């Protein structure tokens, strides 16, 4: 029974967890390790699944904390995401114009240079389509705070793109 739930409910969260971990660690291998640790941690807590209201938020919280721990341990900052950017640019469709590449790179740089909490909130809202309530639950802050952080993040990106 528990195994079926893990397969059908927990395991499909892997990609979402990976995107979250990737936005924090800026490293694919580390992000994968974070997701693995997170899923195993959730599996270890299987006796408490019924008490946990939102298993996805629970997993997201574990994932975020692990990713932050790894980032602190390695001493990495957001600027190192340029490595990911360069890889992405080389794999993009050749038909895209250089201008588009530059613009894309600019947007990515702007997003990656946001503080971790703003970056995470922007990902959860704009990429994962989570409600303010769910984001607040994952981050352990109020919905008002979520909106404040998101507003700051979007404003920075908007101003950066306009300039």
């Amino acid at each position: 029974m528990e195994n079926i739930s893990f397969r059908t409910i927990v395991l499909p969260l892997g990609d979402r967890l990976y995107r979250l971990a990737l936005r924090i660690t800026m490293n694919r291998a580390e992000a994968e390790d974070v997701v693995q640790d997170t899923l195993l941690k959730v599996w270890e807590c299987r006796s408490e699944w019924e008490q946990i209201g939102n298993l996805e938020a629970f997993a997201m919280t574990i994932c975020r904390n692990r990713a932050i721990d790894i980032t602190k341990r390695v001493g990495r900052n957001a600027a190192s995401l340029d490595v990911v950017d360069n890889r992405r640019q080389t794999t993009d469709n050749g038909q895209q114009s250089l201008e588009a590449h530059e613009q894309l790179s600019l947007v990515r740089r702007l997003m990656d240079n946001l503080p971790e909490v703003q970056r995470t909130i922007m990902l959860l809202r704009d990429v994962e389509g989570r409600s303010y309530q769910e984001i607040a639950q994952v981050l352990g802050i109020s919905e008002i705070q979520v909106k404040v952080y998101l507003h700051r993040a979007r404003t920075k990106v908007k101003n950066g793109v306009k300039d």
Partner: protein
Amino acid sequence: MDYKYIEQLLERYWECQTTLEEEAILRTFFRQEDVPASLLPYRQLFIEEDKMANEHLGKDFQDKILRMVDEEEPASSLPEGGPVVCKARRMTVIHRLRPFYRAAGLIAIMLSIGNAAHQSFTDEEDAAKTPQMAETIPFDSLQDISIGQPEEQSAALATQIPDTLDAFTR
């Protein structure tokens, strides 16, 4: 073409006043190639977010996790009091045929008993024919044989028997 609605939505988007559905409309709008110049700088933001949404784990990742979970599962399903230890034992041909030996032995015992019983029964019958056995036959039982005979014959027979027995034993 009038993009006022999109522009209004975008303004509300920057202010974090849009719903998830309205943000989906914006995303759909910016996915198209034909975007007015005034909105073009913002297009890359939505395109980039779409690309982020397509980041996936490797194909073998799920299998790896399932293997790790399956390895741990038996430990949790072990009975209380620790694991059950099973010892392997080598079975030789003698061990395998032991039930047949036992059955054969049992049959042999039963046959011996039956034979012995039969033998003792037949010996008892034959003993009555020997002189020693005949000597021990009680006189009363011989008298019983004569029941049903005429009285004269019975009396005569009764007087003859002791003589016959004496002669026989001599």
